[in-house]
């Protein structure tokens, strides 16, 4: 059972042709698909407008870059060239709309490239409120979301009413609940729920209808419960920084195989951006905006107005996850992750959390150095703990 779900997810992950999306479009004549880039967009709006929301990541280490490098200099991260490669090879032709959230300047500018390359596709850069005053922030984001919803409704031919949007919110609340359960189970029993599998499920969630994901994730959780494994003497770590360009699966496996249990991470962070359920009362767009503004999540793509909180954030995450150390794994040339790292690391080390850091890109092919580093780190955490006892 477990392996059936994992294989389902792996197949989706490995499929650079988005066959699942094409199947859905065939099965739902007249419907459209809409893409979105990392880190977070409210998929409820896409869903309510009748789109299949499709998370766009790069082609990872499976995609050879032929056209993408013509658009990007060597000192820009790998993700956008990989996404361009997917698009220029026709693999994203089925998207009628693409949303570019405010993640960094590279993704922001990619929205402009998209407008130029694909004038028939609806393209919108979605700014997010960065101000500390919740009311100002909510008003802004709410207006932003209304604007997007109006436009998207025109593209899909269906502007949802409040009831429909609430229905979508309810489904995504359920998705968030399941994802929280997955993370909680891994936190409690990381030996039963390997991060590799969790990661594949999250990636599946980016390309299939949300209800299909919920069914599969529940099946997986049930299978995990009935398939108990033996704990190993591994070290528990938080892996921070991989919220946008995703690491190759081999990197995640390398960290685990080197003797680390990943008990908290930033992978496919959009699925966990909202830390609480979105309210099902009042106005649904307002509820979505409010949930964003009220999120407890602290991430590099948002301004942190509270310097104490910035210093505490890694400590809080490690404590909540019961982690003994932090691995900062950031994509090369990733501004948000790399500019944040010295501050986060300082906070972690001040709290007595050992840290290591390395950079990757989504097509990194060799993992020897990561295995060695993570292995040494896991061993040193054990020694550290033995010494502390």
């Amino acid at each position, binding site marked *: 059972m477990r392996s059936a779900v994992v294989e389902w997810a792996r197949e989706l992950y490995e499929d650079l042709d988005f066959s699942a999306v094409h199947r859905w479009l065939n099965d739902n004549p007249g419907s459209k698909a809409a893409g979105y880039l990392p880190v977070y967009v409210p998929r409820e709006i896409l869903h309510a407008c009748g789109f299949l929301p499709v998370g766009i990541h790069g082609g990872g280490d499976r995609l*050879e*870059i*032929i056209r993408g*490098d*013509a658009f990007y200099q*060597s000192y820009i991260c790998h993700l956008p060239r990989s996404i361009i490669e997917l698009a220029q090879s026709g693999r994203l032709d089925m998207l009628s709309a693409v949303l570019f959230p405010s993640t960094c300047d590279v993704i922001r500018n990619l929205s402009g490239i998209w407008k130029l390359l694909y004038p028939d596709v609806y393209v919108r850069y979605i700014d997010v409120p960065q101000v500390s005053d919740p009311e100002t922030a909510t008003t802004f984001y709410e207006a932003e979301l209304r604007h997007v919803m109006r436009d998207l409704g025109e593209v899909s031919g269906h502007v949802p009413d409040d009831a429909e949007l609430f229905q979508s919110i309810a489904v995504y609340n359920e998705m968030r609940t399941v994802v929280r359960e997955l993370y909680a189970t891994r936190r409690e029993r990381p030996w039963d729920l390997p991060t590799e599998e969790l990661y594949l499920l999250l990636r599946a969630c980016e390309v299939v209808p949300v209800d299909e994901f919920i069914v599969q994730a529940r099946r997986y959780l049930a299978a995990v419960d009935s398939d108990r494994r033996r704990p190993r003497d591994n070290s528990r770590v938080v892996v921070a920084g991989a919220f946008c360009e995703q690491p190759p699966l081999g990197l995640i496996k390398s960290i685990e195989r080197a003797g680390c249990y990943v008990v908290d991470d930033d992978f496919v962070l959009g699925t966990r951006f909202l830390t609480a359920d979105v309210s099902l009362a009042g106005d649904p767009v307002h509820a979505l905006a409010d949930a964003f503004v009220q999120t407890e999540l602290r991430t590099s793509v948002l301004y942190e107005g509270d310097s104490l909180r910035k210093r505490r954030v890694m400590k809080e995450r490690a404590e909540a996850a019961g982690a003994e150390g932090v691995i900062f794994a950031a994509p090369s040339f990733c501004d948000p992750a790399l500019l944040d790292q010295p501050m986060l690391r300082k906070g972690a080390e001040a709290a007595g959390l050992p840290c290591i850091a390395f950079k990757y890109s989504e097509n*990194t092919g*060799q993992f020897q150095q990561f295995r060695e580093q993570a292995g040494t780190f896991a061993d040193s955490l054990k020694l550290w703990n033995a010494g502390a006892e």
Partner: protein
Amino acid sequence: MSCVVGIDLGSTTTKAVVLEETGAILGRGITNSRSNYDLAAAVARTEAFINARFGLIQQRAASAIAATAVQKLRRAFVLEQFLHQLRRLEQLMQEEVQRSIPAALRPAYERALEKVCSLILDEEEDRFTQPPAARSDFFRDSAGSAFMRLAEEVAGSHGVTFDRLVGLYDKCIIRVENEPLELDFRDHIGEALHRIGDPIELAGAVDAAVATDLTPAFTVGTGYGRARLPFPKEQIRSEILCHGLGAHALFPLTRTVLDIGGQDTKAIQVDPDGIVTGFQMNDRCAAGCGRYLGYIADEMNLGLHELGPLAEKSTRTVKINSTCTVFAGAELRELLSLGQKREDILAGLHRAIVLRAMSLLARSGGVSDEFTFTGGVAKNPAAVRAIRELVEENYGARQINISADSIYTGALGAALFAKRMVS
């Protein structure tokens, strides 16, 4: 006879082309680039003129017998040049022995060097009597490999160390390369003729070739090191323009040129007259250039020219994600340690380099018909194959031109600019 010269001072080789007024190529010359840029240019140019004079002899040598004799004369000439340099090398090494070897050890080193050099000389004399076989055109390469091999044999029996002999060689070969030597046609043609028995059927042709006045009316320099040529500004053209025009001269229907050289890669678009309309060069790192293949060859302990043919034997290309020269060694060792075959890794490396070139082509405006591929890497069959595949996949069917003389494209372009200056 009025002529013009183009010189392309590249990062690894320096090339020269001599053109007749009509635009016809009279001669080509090549040498390895070295710290003395002027000298590299002078050597390449001398070689081009020697080549031109042999061309003149060839023209006059109508009969088949004479044609064969010219071939033989050419080889004899090359041998004389070699021996001349070998004598100079030995002289310098002997001087160096006096300077840097303790007196007690000197006699042994003197004898050892004498032995090694006389063995090289014997080998060369012997080689001349054998059918021609391919090897590097450069004294540094051919003398170097013979010296290493023979020094190892001689060292033990002469009571000297191999390392010291190599040290002497290394020190002196640089000096031989960086001092002007008399390697010109007139200096050696007499000895060469004598060596092949002064055949009567060549006498007139050689005399005429010697007597022909080949004074260049204008010279234009180009290439990576062009700024260091002792030329005024109007005699310097960018390698982009020269490659564009040179490719146009070789293949008049050329519209897109790709040049992968040692230090950089260039994608050039030209109009029907060979005038450059757009170009892109690789970004600031040398990743994906010929030099990268050089690193790989060193890492694998292979000759540069062996890489392509070995990659051609691959049955399963390994995917290489990084063409970073800095990481090339480590990446290679990891792949080898994972049990990947050398030929499969090499096939992947060639593809990776060509992918970088493809993105430059895309940046410069794509690949139009006809497409001409030049530079040192155009001699590499694995790179050529990867180019063919990727061009076809991405741009459809294109006429792809590769000239056997593609290494001279830049120098040819420079010579054509020189010709324009005259006319």
